[in-house]
């Protein structure tokens, strides 16, 4: 405790204060006896006594310790009570640091985990490291052959990514880090040994200190991180090294998740390639259009399928297949792949629909699948202005034909399903499409769509026929899209089965195929396979 008067003179101080301020003398000017922060606080109190009790206490260092000053006014004098707050301040600093670090780690985690794209993940990791851990950071992905993908980040600059051939042994500890060995302590790494390629272009000045941290992945190393500070900055402390490792652990986990995802997605895409519905177009002067919606929006394949196998030349029939395998999802999709392959092999026999259906039936009966399928087959050939069709349904909904006068006919074909009974019986019917007429093949996912304005009605065949009656003269693509759209709007968010729709349309004009950008006539090659 010390007492001073209004004129800024030290009146007296007690024994405890004397211990803190051993040189202070009663009667001397306060500004000469105590540190400036306390003298200033005194001045302020004298000038505006009312504000002397404001929220934050005057505080500052005296010698090596840290004090807060509380005030009481006694007559004309000011009494200062000095409270030693050194330990609290140290604790607060430590807490502040810890808080900041955990904030950084939490921000880093959510930012890193937000992306499953490998280059983006490396970009984010390097940028965060340069911002929070060092002045610059270089992220090295595990080498692919002799090349390495490198991500450079400098505080305040945009991240740069390149792929080049580098000698990883040039950076002390880097090869080990890429193999997942424990990190070499920063103080063991001589900054002069860092090769130029490991220093980002924007890095100013010479390198002062370096950390090389491995990025631990899921079972395999995910790369390594080089952190750089210039010689004008403080070297990395041990605490910072530990923190860098914590950060590297998160970056490594995020990177290997991204890598795993990319790998899986690529594998899936490759395997799925042959299961996806083909893109259809005009073949031998007849327009084909198809559209497919899986039962679950996040899946791309399911139990419905369609294919167009063009005849070798315009004088030969083109075989169109649309089918529905019992079940949904990937399991069903795998069987559609087998059926499509089998039918492809049976193409030479396509003249007799019942024959190929029976061959397919035996193939399905002898396979280990217990599923069955329904199919609609159409053999199409254009002669002059007439498009001739042979249609066969094997347990499938009969095709619908949209005539130019607005009537919608149901093809009179009936048959049993495939893959369940020892033999398939099916009746093939013939019909002719005039220019502008469309034959629609579809799966029951469309007609069994449940919803509508009242919420619980089936879309049904009648509604489908009414919708088709409005589609007179439309291009096949537009018909298919309209049917899918009406079914989707009928369903809204409701659950549904796979839905496949295909149109065979005799074009109104000549055999021009604008999707190819040129008149294609008979030159269009097969689609689908």
């Amino acid at each position, binding site marked *: 405790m010390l007492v001073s008067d209004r004129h800024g003179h030290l009146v007296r101080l007690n024994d405890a204060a004397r211990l803190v301020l051993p040189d202070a003398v009663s009667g001397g000017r306060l500004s000469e006896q105590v540190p400036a922060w306390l003298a200033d606080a005194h001045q302020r109190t004298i000038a505006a006594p009312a504000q002397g009790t404001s929220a934050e206490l005057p505080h500052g260092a005296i010698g090596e310790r840290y004090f807060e000053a509380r005030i009481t006014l006694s007559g004309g004098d000011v009494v200062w009570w000095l409270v030693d707050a050194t330990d609290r301040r140290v604790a607060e600093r430590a807490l502040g640091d810890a808080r900041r670090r955990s904030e950084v780690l939490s921000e880093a985690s959510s930012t890193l985990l937000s992306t499953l794209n490998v*280059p983006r993940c490396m970009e984010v990791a390097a940028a965060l490291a340069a911002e929070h851990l060092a002045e610059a950071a270089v992220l090295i992905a595990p080498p692919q052959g002799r090349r390495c993908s490198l991500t450079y980040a400098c505080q305040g600059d945009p991240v740069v990514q390149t792929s080049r051939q580098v000698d990883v042994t040039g950076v002390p500890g880097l090869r080990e880090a890429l193999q997942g060995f424990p990190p070499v302590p920063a103080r063991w790494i001589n900054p002069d040994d860092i090769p130029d390629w490991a220093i980002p272009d924007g890095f100013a000045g010479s390198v002062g200190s370096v950390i090389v941290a491995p990025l631990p992945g899921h079972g395999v190393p995910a790369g390594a991180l080089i952190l750089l500070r210039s010689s004008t900055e403080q070297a990395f402390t041990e605490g910072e090294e530990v923190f860098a490792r914590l950060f590297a652990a998160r970056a490594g986990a995020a990177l290997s998740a991204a890598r795993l995802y990319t790998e899986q997605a690529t594998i899936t895409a490759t395997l799925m390639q042959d299961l996806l519905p083909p893109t259809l177009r005009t073949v031998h002067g007849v327009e084909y259009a198809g559209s497919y919606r899986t039962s679950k929006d996040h899946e791309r394949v399911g139990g419905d399928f369609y294919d167009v196998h063009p005849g070798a030349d315009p004088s030969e029939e083109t075989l169109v297949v649309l089918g529905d395998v019992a079940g949904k999802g990937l399991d069903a999709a795998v069987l559609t792949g087998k059926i499509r392959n089998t039918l492809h092999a049976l193409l030479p026999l396509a003249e007799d629909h019942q024959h190929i259906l029976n061959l397919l039936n035996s193939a399905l009966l002898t396979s280990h699948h217990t599923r069955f399928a329904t199919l609609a087959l159409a053999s199409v050939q254009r002669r002059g202005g007439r498009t001739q069709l042979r249609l066969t349904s094997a347990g499938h909904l009969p095709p619908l034909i949209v005539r130019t006068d607005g009537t919608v006919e149901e093809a009179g074909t009936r048959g049993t399903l495939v893959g369940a009974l020892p033999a398939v019986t099916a009746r093939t019917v013939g019909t002719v499409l005039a220019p502008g007429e469309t034959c629609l093949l579809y799966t029951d996912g469309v007609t069994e769509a449940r919803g509508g304005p009242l919420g619980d009605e089936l879309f049904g065949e009648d509604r489908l026929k009414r919708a088709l009656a409005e589609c007179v003269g439309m291009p096949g693509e*537009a018909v298919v899209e309209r049917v899918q759209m009406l079914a989707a709007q009928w369903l809204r968010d409701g659950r549904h089965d796979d839905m496949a729709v295909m149109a065979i349309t005799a074009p109104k004009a000549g055999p021009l195929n604008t999707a190819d950008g040129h008149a294609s006539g008979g030159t269009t090659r097969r689609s689908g396979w």
Partner: protein
Amino acid sequence: MVSEPTATAGAVQRLWHAVMAGDEHRAAATVHDAMAQGLSEETLLLQVIAPVQEKVGVEWAADRISVAQEHAATAINERVVASLAHRPAAGRPAPDRGRVTVACVDGEWHALPARLVAQVLTLRGWRVDYLGAQTPTSHLIAHLHLTNPDAVLLSGSIPTHLPTAHAAISACQAIGVPVLAGGRAFGPRGRYATALGADRWAADARAAVAVLEAGVPRPSPSAIRHTVDDLPHLADQEYTLVVRSRTQFVKQTLADLDDRFPAMRAYSSAQRERTAEDIAHIVDFLATALYVDDPDLFTAFLTWTAGILTARGVPARSLAAGLDALADQLRDFPRALKMIEHGRAALTEHTTRPVPGPDIHA
């Protein structure tokens, strides 16, 4: 040599007649000829094909063309755009700008605006992944993870897809990809794009190019938002409850209309279904207006519908009656009631207003 505006106007005329005749051959020839005569591909896309498509919507709304003609015309326009895109890429710039993804909101079938934007961006040197109509959000996000584009351009034409668009916008931003919203669904001057937290909005294809060229910063994925953070009014649950009770509202309104209009009892099942669909539409737009908390969205839909009905010789009186029946069921929904009142008043003022309005038809 004719001036460009004259050449453009001529091409619009010829393309319009070709698509109305359903003549894909002539439509493609018109556009390719115009190009051969010096119109640029961008001019063809934005000043020939786009206006023709716009006119298709207007003519349908005015009941001057049929649904089939409208669909055929749209399909032909789509294919004409595709035929331009698949031309051998002579003189086209190598993509050096950056990579973007163009997609329509899930449930959105109007793909042509997005397609035109995608094509124009390609012409301006962007590498474009065009995902097409009604892209499920899960597909969009999977695509973004694989391709890491600089931005997503999200297109929507019908306002009822705004809640879905909101989910898509937040999902893209959560993985650090900025979203540029466009299309009529996002309202006048893009006001709903702002409300739903899209990073940018563009009025048309050229504005979208300008926005991308100026650069769109990546959103911080660590700032995870919830729906109510963007739209605090959703806390009153009115939107949720209206959506959940949609079917019930439609059924009850139909029953009430039966009482008010004895003539309705003689409707055929198809006529009843149309009426039910109209009511369902009203509920959907009301729900969307609740979602973005904008009575104007609902009112614009009502006056537009009244115009459509009038064009088809149906008295708009039934619309008002439907609103009254709906209001009776929404007594506990103050925000919804206010919107219905607002719309009801606008309908009374509404004297046959010429279309166009929001493009909501199928």
